[in-house]
């Protein structure tokens, strides 16, 4: 027997899907700004492995000479990004959703297990629950990164008014580099996130739109308590 089970609250789905286009605009306008002083490279000594970004990349996205536009977009959408992020954090705190999201002392071990499993190294079955250890770590880290973007962004945007913050982050130049690195982090997160969503399948993806999942309601169902959270462990499911 199958049944429908609630998974993601409406608020979380809104925050998630608002954040997607807003973060996209923030990254895009960020590239428009970065182009005007595109100094970052990956290098060892004098050997440059990669320069952010190649000309072809700029041309394809028609980036050059749009600094003013980039700043105008960035300093408008930053408010939506900030408010949406703040609303998400506030909601997770007051709704109790944080219990599923925050890593606990088992998360790191479990994340290792998930990693081995996802790289096809281990065949041990994964725990079936809302967020496994790897997800808890990833989804908490991305929020911390968002907070980091906010701070480093503010340090670059108003380095005199927030002089102490800028100094704490290693100065103006460093704050700008950190802001950039965090953005690269989002892009990497996005790639892994898309791959994992694709692997997890339709039922999982549907849940972030509809809010519910179809689950097997059967014999070998077992309820366990992990850190005060009731979880359904379904032994039949992979």
């Amino acid at each position: 027997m199958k049944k429908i089970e609630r998974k993601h609250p409406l608020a979380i789905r809104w925050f998630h899907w608002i954040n997607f286009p807003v973060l996209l605009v923030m990254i895009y306008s960020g590239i428009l700004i970065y182009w005007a002083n595109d100094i970052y490279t990956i290098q060892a000594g004098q050997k440059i492995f990669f320069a952010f970004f190649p000309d072809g990349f700029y041309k394809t996205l028609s980036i050059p000479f749009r600094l003013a536009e980039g700043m105008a977009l960035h300093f408008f959408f930053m408010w939506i990004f900030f408010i949406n992020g703040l609303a998400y954090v506030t909601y997770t705190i007051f709704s109790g959703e944080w219990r599923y999201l925050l890593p606990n002392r088992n998360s790191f071990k479990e994340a290792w297990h998930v990693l081995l499993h996802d790289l096809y190294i281990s065949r041990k079955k994964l725990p079936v629950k809302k967020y496994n250890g790897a997800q808890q770590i990833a989804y908490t880290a991305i929020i911390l990164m968002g907070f980091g973007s906010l701070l480093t962004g503010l340090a670059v945007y108003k380095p005199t008014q927030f002089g102490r913050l800028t100094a704490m982050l290693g100065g103006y130049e460093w704050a700008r580099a950190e802001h950039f690195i965090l953005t690269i982090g989002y892009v990497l997160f996005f790639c892994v996130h898309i791959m994992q969503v694709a692997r997890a399948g339709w039922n999982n993806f549907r849940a972030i739109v509809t809010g519910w999942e179809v689950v097997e309601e059967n014999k070998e169902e077992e309820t366990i308590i992990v850190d005060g959270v009731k979880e359904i462990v379904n032994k039949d499911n992979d």
Partner: protein
Amino acid sequence: MAEENYSEDQFRKTVRKKTLKSFALFFIFICCVFLGWNWLSHQPKDAGALKPLRKAMDVNENIFSKVFSTSDLEPEYPVSSAVSRVRVNGNYGMKSALDTSSWKLLVVRNADLLSTADTIEISLDEIKKLPKTEVIFNFKCIEGWSQITWWGGVRFSDFAAHYQLGMKSCGIIEKGTEGEECKYAGLTSTDGEYYVGIDMPSMMHPQTILCYEMNGRSLPMNQGAPLRLIIPVKYGIKHLKRIGTLFFSDNRPKDFWYERGYDYYAGL
């Protein structure tokens, strides 16, 4: 058996119906996002920036100039930190030849009072007689680079106090305006090609100087000799070189980069 199949069928139908409903709403949401973006990118422009974004820039100016302190000092560095090769960026307003020996700064006390506009001409020697202030700070270009540079000149607030500038009354007594500052200062290059407008609190900031020295020597021609503005609380676009005219007004003076889509305030 048949009954179970029926109920499973029923369940599948329910799931399909619920899924379709949610995804229809999701599709509408996606459409709204695209329509919103489309709406934004087709808005008329105000001084080179899309109107809603221009509005946001003005709101940001209000927030950062009113909610947060604007009297913070930009950190200063020892002379040894200052670079010797100072980057030159932008030569707008400096394309023609200039005879620096005959140069004088033209000051318009209150540009809003046209009938009584009272102007004065001040030579570089007179400016140099005022107490000298040096500032060694991290100069920030709006493009995203920065450099620790060393500048010398007269603190703008000292200069304004000495010549009694920036006041609404500007010599004549108008009721209720005694001792009240104009809202803006405007600066124009000698050839009029480059111009900036700056809010008075930033002009009167203790690190804002009318600069005639760089790295302890006379200001080079390509850095805006004979006199340029150094205003650490603003991006480089506001540090006008080769000042020709200085005026005060309650209306936003025209601004070169503002007209090209940048933020008027450009404060740091």
